[in-house]
């Protein structure tokens, strides 16, 4: 019997050291947009970093990251709902996500090297069949399965025990 249905979240951190074309596009687009949109808050004052901006202008969080995230909507669409850089045990890059969250970690209008953002991809529900060593044995469409290694940036963000789900119809029926 499966253990649970779960949702996964995978957080990709992108900074100047990021190497893939996708990451580099994200880096440049968000840095340019940060440099533009932060002006709505700083308005010429001597605040340059995201830390200073959100401390000085509390309204900038979450408004500024939200506005910066506009710049990557097209790039996110280009992923066709596959989480980049997350591979199953066979090396396939086809773990689907249904939503994403953009985060502005740090930035500085004077120095792009300080710029760092995160994108957290959240999956739909998977069936967690087993945990084999450090790998999750998952199903999207049983009986087909795939294995995914637990790794930095990957987390289970919802967990519903299988027993509870199988009891739900009975509970509903008894109402």
């Amino acid at each position, binding site marked *: 019997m499966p253990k649970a249905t779960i949702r996964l979240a995978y957080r990709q951190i992108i900074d100047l050291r990021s190497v893939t074309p996708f990451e580099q596009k994200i880096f440049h687009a968000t840095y340019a947009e940060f440099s533009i949109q932060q002006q709505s808050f700083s*308005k010429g004052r001597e605040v340059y970093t995201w830390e200073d901006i959100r401390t000085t202008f509390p309204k900038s969080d979450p*408004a500024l990251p939200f506005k910066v995230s*506009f710049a990557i909507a*097209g790039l996110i669409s280009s992923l066709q709902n596959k989480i980049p850089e997350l591979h199953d045990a066979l090396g396939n890059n086809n773990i689907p996500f249904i939503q994403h969250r953009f985060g502005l970690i740090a930035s500085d209008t004077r120095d792009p090297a300080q710029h760092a953002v995160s994108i957290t991809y959240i999956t739909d529900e998977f069936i967690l069949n087993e945990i084999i060593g450090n790998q999750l044995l998952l199903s999207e469409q049983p009986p087909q399965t795939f294995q995914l290694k637990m790794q930095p940036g990957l987390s289970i963000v919802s967990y519903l025990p299988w027993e509870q789900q199988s009891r739900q119809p009975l509970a509903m029926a008894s109402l």
Partner: protein
Amino acid sequence: MEQHSRAKFLKNLLIGATSVPILVEACSKSGSSSSSSSTSTSSSDSTYTGTSSTSCSASPSETAGPYPYDLSSNSAIFRTDITEGKTGIPLTLTLTIVNSNNSCAVISGARVDIWHCDKDGYYSEYSEPGYLGTQDNTGKTFLRGIQLSDTNGQVKFTTIYPGWYTGRVTHIHVEVFVNSVLKLTTQLAFPDSLNTTVYKTSLYSAHGQNSTTNSNDNVFSDSYTSELLTISGNTTDGYTATFKVGVPL
């Protein structure tokens, strides 16, 4: 999820908005400075003449230079139609960006960001209270858009007539960036009588009429006559609005 206080946000926004000189139509001193007037062009059509001046229309064009990255490929936000399925009376908005420091020469390549609330008074991005209760619109982008001005200095948006929320009169937010530098933050106003007309229609009437008008709105009260859209149309076919935005370069 954390609830963001729109009241607090708006308060800050207003502080921000009013801390920047409102330069819209700064170039129209020699032109019209009239408040809105309404004339009937048919039994149902209305035309409201705002404050745009035509005195600069023959001025030479100026370019704002290349945009730093290719936002034009990002149809998610770089778009003419910002409706995203939101219902309301159609509104076509054409803004002309001109240099108020140079005889109102049109500015091409300026980046214009606009945003406004939906027919019920809710903004995308925020989780906020309203007359229909709290709506969580975080991560949504409806009724927001960016365009670059064309060789005539124009940007065009298709959207809906905004609704209203407690404490503010109907408005559209506008930011103009030239060479990636924020040059103007302002808001555009609608004639009070037109707001009343629109908010009587079936799509909007559930919210009733707004007690805040342009003259007692804390953003527009001392300046709305220079921020009024020129607008015509009717509640059935929608409205067409224009405005000349003066930016000092």
